């Protein structure tokens, strides 16, 4: 049976539901920006952050969004780089979601700075050894590369270049996530960080988080526009989600096994795995949110076949992977800081500056609203993009996406 040509169409008309969605997302973004303005005006004193926990909830949101952004591009990469035609109709949306998530994440990261008004200083004064500097280049370049990639895919005359540009985008995204993971991996001072595994671990996590966000956006978009979404595509995505989540869990296991083998790291693992010495909240989030709800349940849903049979269950699995991703970022970012610095191994340390004790952190509403604003901006960009340009296939029915399909 001959393959039906994929047609891409922008979302037509201006239904009330669409306007409402855009309004809600826009309002949430605005609230996020206003929260950041309040934080800047009053100072970080109104946040839960302090001199022990210097990166709080905004970083949890920002790093999740940035990691998920690079992972969301994976669908396009599988199509262009690894030549899997069934993913090709999804490639445009993959690129859009990737850009949107990155922009949302960077917004949160920038607005959480102590002096966001000095952002231009990062251009006029550059320290080439800083991983943040690399990331500024990597994030800006990512948007540029993916925009060109989308152009190559969407402009018929340029289609021939979509594979080489797709390869470039794939390499770029791998380097980007390496850079994001290395923010923590290269920090020699802290027990929870200083591990080269952070870069590949973040890459595999990005596959899972990005795909989970992509699946939910795909479901929402096709339901809202009444377009057909066939089982072939959905089941492929379900299988991928299971594989990626398993891969991420494998890296987490290896990371902790390494720590459990090395006596030097026993304190940190007792803190984050067993909740010793004030690590209770992080151990709870690790086991309950990151491992059980965020990894084991979705993996079970996929490999039991349930997520293949029910879109609701696949949606649930994707939502749980996202929840687990937030849990992982919370444990990594907040927990990693909360564990006290080891200045004198083998000694108990006390001081007026909270040495030797777990750092305390209670996120404030302003931080949460800023993070939510970044997420909302990302979704608003996707909603706006699919409205003005043909990113979504008119149909993703099995007969459209699979050349070998027969009814």
């Amino acid at each position, binding site marked *: 049976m001959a393959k039906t040509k994929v047609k891409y169409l922008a979302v037509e008309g201006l239904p009330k539901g669409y306007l409402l969605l855009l309004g809600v997302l826009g309002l949430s973004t605005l609230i996020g920006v206003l929260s950041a303005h309040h934080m800047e005006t009053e100072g970080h*004193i109104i946040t839960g952050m302090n*001199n022990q926990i210097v990166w709080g909830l905004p970083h949890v949101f920002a790093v999740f969004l940035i990691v998920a952004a690079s992972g969301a591009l994976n669908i396009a990469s599988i199509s262009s780089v690894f030549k899997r035609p069934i993913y090709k109709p999804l490639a445009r949306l993959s690129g859009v979601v990737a850009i949107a998530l990155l922009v949302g994440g960077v917004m949160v990261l920038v607005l959480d700075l102590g002096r966001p008004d000095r952002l231009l200083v990062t251009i006029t004064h550059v320290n080439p050894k800083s991983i943040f500097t690399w990331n500024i280049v990597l994030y800006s370049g990512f948007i540029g590369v993916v925009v060109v990639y989308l152009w190559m895919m969407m402009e018929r005359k340029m289609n021939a270049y979509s594979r080489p540009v797709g390869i470039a985008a794939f390499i770029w995204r791998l380097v980007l996530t390496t850079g994001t993971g290395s923010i923590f991996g290269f920090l020699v001072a802290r027990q929870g960080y200083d591990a080269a595994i952070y870069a590949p671990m973040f890459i595999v996590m990005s596959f899972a988080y990005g795909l989970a966000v992509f699946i939910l956006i795909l479901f929402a978009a096709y339901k809202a526009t009444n377009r057909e979404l066939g089982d072939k595509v959905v089941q492929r995505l379900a299988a991928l989600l299971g594989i990626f989540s398993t891969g991420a869990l494998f890296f987490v296991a290896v990371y902790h096994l390494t720590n459990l083998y090395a006596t030097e790291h026993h304190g940190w693992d007792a803190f984050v795995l067993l909740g010793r010495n004030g690590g209770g909240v992080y151990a709870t989030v690790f086991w309950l949110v990151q491992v059980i709800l965020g990894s084991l349940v979705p993996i079970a849903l996929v490999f039991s076949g349930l997520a293949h049979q029910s879109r609701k269950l696949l949606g649930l699995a994707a939502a749980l992977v996202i929840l687990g991703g937030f849990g992982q970022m919370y444990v990594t970012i907040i927990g990693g800081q909360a564990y006290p610095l080891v200045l004198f191994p083998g000694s108990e*340390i006390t*001081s007026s*500056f909270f040495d030797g004790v777990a750092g305390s952190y209670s996120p404030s509403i302003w931080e949460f609203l800023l993070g939510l604003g970044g997420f909302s901006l990302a979704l608003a960009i996707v909603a706006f993009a699919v409205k003005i340009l043909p990113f979504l296939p008119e149909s993703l029915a099995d007969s459209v996406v699979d050349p070998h399909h027969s009814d």
Partner: protein
Amino acid sequence: MSSNNDSKRSRRTFLKGTAAVATGLALAPGVRLLGVAQAKADDEAVTGAVRWGLLIDTAKCSDCDVCVEACHAENGVKDQGDPETTPQWIRKLMAKDKMTGHVVTLPMMCQHCEHPPCVDVCPTGASFRRADGIVLVDRHICIGCRYCMMACPYKARSFEHVDVTDQAPHAPRGKGTVESCTMCVHRVDKGREPACVEACNSTGQGAMVFGDLKDSTSSISMALAEHGGKQIRADLGLNTGVRYRGI
């Protein structure tokens, strides 16, 4: 041209001498002078010919915190009410060996590393190391990302969570930026000791020695050569400018 340079040089020498004499008069008896040659004119570039450092003898360090009080008074660092967010440029730290119960108390501050992780990670170069080894934050280009605080192994840096009022003119600070011990660079450049060292010595403790680590005849170098001095987290290979005895 040459005579012009000569006259500038002689004027500079005269100013240095005058400054040194004035400093000497202002110092309390018993405080060791750094020497005339180490005062620096404002327009004179910092060079790597010296490396400033501190040696702290924990055996002489008692439970007092005059070094902390002197530092914070000197640099205008005040209690802001919340101990979790109030900056601390220097703090007294107590380390009790879990097996032996042996207790060591010492002042902890920026260790002025030769290879400072805070400088490596700073995206704008606001965290920087002077040629003479003093690690500082340029508050004009600090964007408040706090990456340096994540990177510092000594928890030496603080973030300004609130507006700072009544600042010391020589130690500008600002909400939304990071700050830490400057080794009292404003005093060192005038040939004086850091406030913490001066205070410690004025109480008779004499637990802190300040000086040029590159000058083998300086008190600090001679003390280090004779008794040694360890780095905290020496395993990190940062070659700190602050050394401790008795740890």
